[in-house]
């Protein structure tokens, strides 16, 4: 993975020193609450319901074993011994003290971790395809570009105070696993007919209150222009994005009101000034950064056949292993290797939550079954990216004993879920208990496997941290004034990927305790209606939302259409 040089290290060390001084001034009363807020946010610190939360960046989802151990250490020493992997591929500690955070950041900086710009109205930590560099369908490894963007956007003086947060996501594969069309900027790297790396630039995607799918404003941007072009987008946004209403300040609102064509004109006009300016990327810089993402020393394997045959036999003896192979093991560019998802979606455990002891165990597994590197996914799981085919059975045994082998990746119970009202000050509803109730309702793994691939996303509020708008099944906590109960809206038919689509709301909100049963009704209908080989989303596309409305709300569905 990318190793810091002295410049990178000096940068994060200086950032720690700066924040230590800012914290000191805040605690001494020299900085007001209002003045300190953006400073702490741009260092990843929120003040939540109970205590400050630290969002530690995992740039483009690549994490070393030593880094995970350092997170485990600070979680034990300064927090309550656990962390939460978020849909930003980051990890959050929930129970810190402001006065301790400079020390926490200093500990993390020793292993090249930081929390710079994981929050705030700035360019946020960049997310990526979690199989970047290993996916069989990848044309261009986007990680070197993501790292170049990370460096460029870190403390960029002109874009330090944008109208609102600004999120980049990158991919270089034929299918999009990074939800790039629901980010402020999505970058799809590919090779053109001549073998040159080009970038398709999507702009104006986002979820939240106004879910929007991003539009293409550049189809074949030469990679050397990446920083120039992104600077042009950000300058246009910094100058003209709305600042009078934080609900309307994201770039998606600007793109909606201007239209894609006008947005493109503005960006192109701005870009023209700096097209061959000093920020134009060089072969040397790309080569230097790419070296940090060179393939690890894989063992050469002539054929996979013998290993596959043994796995087959083991699978016949151990049906759980067969299920896990089927769901949690993914193809790899390198013959003889596979990527493995460690499911953080376990019965009785909040989605994405991991204890410090588990972190240490996972860090050790990443060393024994790979090269000491992990990936975090935007679906809140972890991935061991380079597992030898011949090691899969042994690995499964170990994961199983750690409760990290739930064979549900991509299935209904691979729930994506925000921390919700238990911790988050914004949430309307406690999403985690609901996720756990759904896990219980669908505890039968054979039934879940039979239901097939389903993205189910639960957000505790309209800020949509769990991306419920692009879940096949999206569940949103809503506020009903005066009600003591928690209420949820169900939406169906969302999809991520290059053809991203937004989910449609089925009907009026239901009380939390009605949701698991309502989900069961939705899925029963799917099972009744599906044709051979059809996934839930395929059946939904074919039959539409109305049968689901009637199934959930009976004839009242017609009366209540206005809520849809």
């Amino acid at each position, binding site marked *: 993975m*990318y*190793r810091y*040089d*002295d*410049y990178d290290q*000096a*940068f994060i060390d*200086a*950032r720690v*020193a*700066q924040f230590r*001084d*800012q914290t000191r001034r805040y605690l001494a009363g*020299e900085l007001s609450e209002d*003045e300190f807020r*953006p*400073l702490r946010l741009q260092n990843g610190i929120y003040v939540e319901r109970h205590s400050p939360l630290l969002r530690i960046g995992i740039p483009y989802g690549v994490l070393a074993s030593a880094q995970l151990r350092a997170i485990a250490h600070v979680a034990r020493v300064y927090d309550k011994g656990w962390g939460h992997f978020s849909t930003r591929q980051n990890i959050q500690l929930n129970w810190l003290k402001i006065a301790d955070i400079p020390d926490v950041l200093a500990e993390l900086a020793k292993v090249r971790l930081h929390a710079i710009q994981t929050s705030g*109205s700035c360019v946020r930590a960049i997310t990526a395809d979690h199989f970047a560099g290993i996916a069989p369908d990848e044309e261009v490894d986007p990680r070197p570009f993501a790292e170049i963007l990370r*460096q*460029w*956007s*870190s*403390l*960029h*003086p*002109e*874009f*330090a*105070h*944008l109208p609102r947060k600004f999120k980049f996501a990158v991919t270089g594969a034929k299918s999009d696993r990074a939800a790039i069309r629901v980010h402020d900027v999505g970058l799809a790297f590919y090779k053109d007919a001549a073998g040159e790396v080009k970038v398709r630039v999507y702009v104006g995607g986002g979820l939240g209150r106004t879910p929007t799918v991003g539009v293409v404003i550049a189809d074949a941007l030469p990679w050397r222009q990446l*920083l120039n072009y992104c600077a042009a987008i950000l*300058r246009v946004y*910094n*100058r*003209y994005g*709305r*600042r*009078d*209403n*934080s*609900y309307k*300040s994201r770039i998606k609102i600007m793109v909606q009101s201007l239209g894609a064509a006008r947005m493109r004109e503005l960006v192109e006009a701005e870009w023209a*000034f700096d097209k061959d*300016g*000093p*920020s134009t990327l*060089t072969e*040397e*810089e790309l080569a*230097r*950064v790419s*070296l*940090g*993402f*060179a*393939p*690890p020393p894989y063992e050469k394997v002539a054929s996979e056949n013998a290993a596959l045959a043994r796995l087959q036999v083991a699978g016949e003896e151990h049906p759980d292993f067969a299920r896990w192979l089927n769901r949690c093991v993914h193809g790899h560019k390198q013959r003889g290797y596979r990527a493995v998802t460690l499911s953080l979606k376990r019965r009785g455990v909040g989605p994405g939550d991991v204890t410090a002891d588990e972190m240490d165990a996972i860090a050790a597994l990443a060393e024994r079954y790979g090269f000491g590197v992990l990936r975090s996914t935007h679906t809140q799981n972890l991935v061991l990216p380079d597992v030898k085919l011949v090691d899969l059975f042994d690995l499964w045994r170990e994961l199983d004993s750690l409760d990290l082998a739930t064979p549900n990746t991509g299935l209904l119970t691979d729930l994506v879920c925000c921390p919700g009202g238990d911790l988050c000050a914004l949430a309307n509803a406690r999403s985690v208990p609901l996720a756990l109730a759904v896990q219980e309702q669908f505890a039968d793994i054979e039934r879940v496997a039979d239901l097939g691939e389903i993205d189910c996303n639960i957000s505790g509020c309209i800020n949509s941290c769990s991306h419920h708008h692009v879940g096949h099944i999206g569940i949103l906590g809503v506020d009903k004034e005066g009600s003591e109960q928690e209420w949820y809206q169900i939406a169906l038919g969302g999809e991520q990927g290059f053809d991203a689509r937004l989910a449609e709301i089925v009907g009026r909100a239901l009380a939390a305790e009605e949701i698991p049963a309502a989900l069961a009704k939705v899925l029963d209908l799917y099972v009744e209606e599906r044709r051979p080989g059809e996934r839930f989303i395929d059946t939904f596309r074919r039959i539409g939302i109305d049968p689901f409305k009637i199934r959930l709300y009976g004839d009242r569905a017609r009366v209540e259409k206005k809520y849809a």
Partner: protein
Amino acid sequence: MPEVIRPDGRIEEADWTLVRYPASNDPKPKATGKAGLARNTGEAAAPPELVAALPVPPSGRVIVPLALWQARREELQRRFDAGEVGVWLDACEEVETLVAAVDLAAVPLLALDFPKAGDGRAYSSAALLRRRYGYRGPLWAVGDVLRDYFVFMFRCGFDTLLPRPGRYTHAQLAEAASQLGLFKQPYQGAVDDPRPLFRRVQRAPLHA
């Protein structure tokens, strides 16, 4: 006298008077929404009556609002020619308007306002003035100019920073000045040095 800070950390007394609209003209937060403060780019900074009525000190060096310069140019031209009138731009005003209304080669001073610290438009305006429009004269940052952002301002082409009067003691400013060099090698190019780090230094090759 209010104090200003320079890129090399020097602290000086401000030798210009900033002419501002009365505070009552500051936009009020709306009842709903979290930000609800700023005027959007392209909106007028102040109504014409206010511009017409705003008193300008009769002597000395003054920095007047762009709208005032546009509306009352005749009244101020002589003082402008004597190098005593600078112009400041509100965050909601476009730098292109300034460039069209003011002779950049003749104006003795320009200033850009940060109506609140989180409004980052003036960073882009400064960068455009310096790099696109070639303005080489004094460029002041005024308004909500906070020490934690001094470096950003200098990097974007400001050469003089004027925090709100009373916001910092002299000792606090001196402390802030001593921290200006904390980040020795920023990653990205900016106005102060357009070269990104990878063109500024020879970075060591990495290893997988």
